[in-house]
């Protein structure tokens, strides 16, 4: 099924007599049982107002199309959505709907928030085939409940997103990367916390075990020079990359290209940054990336093994990104699980949208 309009989609959902598997370009490998519902026909930018910092586009619009359009005006999606093609070994162009449904965000999330923080409005079709809108296209909106936030990251289990309205931001004039080599994860975590606890507006802090610890600074040229100098004094890290070279490095980190290939499973942990080194010590992963100053760890793990048993007692969410054989999402407390299944039953009374995907 490949609807080309919201009304057509609504009819298809109303007519469906079994589970539906909602797919954008399928780059994230999140499939489930049911007839495939392809959203790529719901595409196109419907409004772009650079002076109001907003963009509205169909959920099937590719990220590349949006980013190219924004670049022409010197703007960008500041939450740095990730493309997972390299990590998942998938081809195809990531869609905006896929980004929003997974609430994807890259290293900038530590300073600028996730996709939900930049999502201003949604239109979606719920499991009963009703077309619903929430939010709008303005920066501040508290009119009624914030279903926008709820839909972000709902992995298609509450509705099929059709149109998204996003806040965009100016592209900084330039950027630079500071690096330090050979730190332990504990040293790196302390250093990153120091940098983030400074007034110098770090917009990326990652550590690659066995490699570098990197900090990113963005802004006007003189300001970047000034702040990298200050951070260098504070942390001992040295400027290693500037301008385009720095941008290219962070694009690789954002898209997690270091995890391309291999047979291992890939997991993503979210936890308090100061718990990062403990998690690393327990898991001893072959390959890992500590993003978010240590608060978001991407790592390789033995195929088929549920690593959650090794993280007992740590306050941590583990999500399996690549691989099979474990519950993909972190199990919820009974109270939260009850609220979530209650909400799902309201949005999708027949339980046909990406059934079972989020537990």
């Amino acid at each position, binding site marked *: 099924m490949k609807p080309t309009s919201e009304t057509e989609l609504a009819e298809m959902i109303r007519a469906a007599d079994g589970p539906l598997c909602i797919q954008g370009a399928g780059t994230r490998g999140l499939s489930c049982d049911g007839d495939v519902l392809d959203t790529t026909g719901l595409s196109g930018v419907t409004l772009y107002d650079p002076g*109001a910092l907003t963009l509205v586009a169909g959920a099937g619009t590719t990220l590349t199309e949006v980013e190219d359009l924004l670049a022409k005006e010197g703007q960008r999606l500041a939450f740095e959505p990730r493309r997972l093609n390299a990590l998942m070994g998938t081809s195809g162009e990531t869609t905006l709907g896929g980004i929003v449904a997974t609430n994807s965000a890259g290293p900038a999330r530590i300073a600028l928030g996730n996709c939900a923080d930049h999502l201003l409005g949604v239109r979606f079709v719920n499991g009963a085939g009703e077309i619903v809108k929430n939010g709008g296209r303005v920066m501040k909106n*508290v009119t009624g409940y914030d279903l926008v936030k709820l839909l972000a990251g709902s992995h298609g289990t509450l509705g099929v997103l059709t149109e998204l309205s996003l806040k965009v931001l100016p592209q900084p004039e330039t950027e630079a990367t500071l690096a330090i080599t050979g730190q332990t994860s504990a040293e790196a975590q302390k250093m990153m916390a120091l940098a983030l606890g400074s007034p110098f507006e770090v917009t990326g802090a990652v550590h690659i075990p066995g490699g570098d610890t990197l900090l990113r600074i963005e802004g006007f040229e003189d*300001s970047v020079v000034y702040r990298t100098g200050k951070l260098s004094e504070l942390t001992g890290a040295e400027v290693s990359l500037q301008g385009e070279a720095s941008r290219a490095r962070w694009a690789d980190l954002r898209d997690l290209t270091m995890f391309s290939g291999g047979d291992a499973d890939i997991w993503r942990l979210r936890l308090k940054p100061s718990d990062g080194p403990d998690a690393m010590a327990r898991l001893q992963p072959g390959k890992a990336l500590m993003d978010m100053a240590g608060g978001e760890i991407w790592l390789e793990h033995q195929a088929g093994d549920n690593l959650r048993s090794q993280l007992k007692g740590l306050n941590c969410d583990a999500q399996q990104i690549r691989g099979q054989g474990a519950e993909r999402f*972190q199990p919820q407390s009974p*109270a939260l699980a009850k609220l979530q299944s209650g909400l799902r039953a309201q949005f999708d009374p027949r339980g046909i949208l990406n059934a079972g995907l989020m537990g």
Partner: protein
Amino acid sequence: MQMPQPDARVLDRKDRIIARLRAALPDCPVISDPRELHAYECDALTAYRCPPMCVVLPGSTEEVSAALRICHEEQAPVVPRGAGTSLAGGALPTADSVIIGVARLNQFLETDYTNRFIRVQTGVTNLSVTGQVQEDGFFYAPDPSSQLACAIAGNIAMNSGGAHCLKYGVTTNNLLGVTMVMMDGEVVEIGGEYPDAGGGLNLLGLICGSEGQLGIVTEATLRILHAPEGARPVMIGFDSNEVAGECVSDIIRAGILPVAIEFMDRPCIRACEAFAKAGYPDVEALLIVEVEGSEDEISHQLSLIKDIAMKHNPAEFRESTSSEESAAIWLGRKSAFGAMGQINDYMCLDGTIPVSELPYVLRRIGEMSKDYGLDVANVFHAGDGNMHPLILFDANKPGDLELCEEFGADILKLCVEVGGCLTGEHGVGVEKRDLMDHQYAPVDIEAQLRVKDVFDPAWLLNSAKVFPLTHTENRRKGALPPSAS
């Protein structure tokens, strides 16, 4: 504005309900003396008043839970209350309701600079959170003008914003987790001590801004940030509102993102100047633009802003020259509502529009003001298009309030028409409740009502707010529609 008839069955049980609350909560004030209840009969939207049945002021999450369990068993409506500064009537009681207030939940629980969060009980005031971490160079970013008085509880319920939200985001962007008690007394932990904690559906984002209708929030974990090295406001005066609006959109368009861009027109400037002696220029429209960073960073950004402003022939371009002056400039701005209130009765609106529509909307408001014969003063967060037109009226003149409300509704409809919304930070409450149909189709509203069905199936929590009463009538009377099974 109408409120539902109080439920006579609940009123009949009043004595028993109060007695049960007192018995279950021996250490906790349960107020039922009519004189003492006066203090709770309204919030900052003082046009509407009604004393509740009683007020409970719990001192712990457990006490909130115990109180809610009793109210749930007795099927008594509950109105959560923070500091009572809502401008939308969010904390307005009904005669059959029990107010549960967080005033005694005022502990700071944990400060963690390594992971940059602070955990508080929600009765603490917004400003005191920054107060708690300021000595160590940190601050809590959302800064509603009411920050000296309003509680974190109300901030979360309303998803409050403030002048500096242009850069730092509103409450929802700075909230990491909450402890919430649901109407049946069950305590849930949502989110945690780091962004997106807990995985699963984004319930935290749903709770924030739900206007006290999904649960009572007793504890919150908030993101704290290191303060910038310095900050400086500049005042840019213009001969017309429209030109000031054009300047705002040019600044945004140019890729400079100041921390704040605030707007005031002449009536507000004069009122605020009388109040704060900030040295505001006497112009038709004033922008206060603030930038942050080191001395050099500040100068550089201000020079870029100056270049843009000069293209619009400003009547005045004046940088603050000292921290005292900066403080006075902000004091004046943040006191705008109070200062205006000393001069005139007014109704404060809160619609948001796309920034690029500012010049048009300001012009239309000016025209409508003439048609209605009521003056408007404007003071608002221009950088994110969040307008606060204050419609001036005379409360003692028969018919003036009604005329003012009609004018207000027209302005909000205009905001929706140009792609904006009814409320950017104050919330719907009772004030904008009956305008919701202008922004949302019935199916959009129904989707929201179904969310409340999950958290509060009996529709007891603050239920007469946010949605037009006709949409909620059956639910409030306890008859869930079959679709919600």
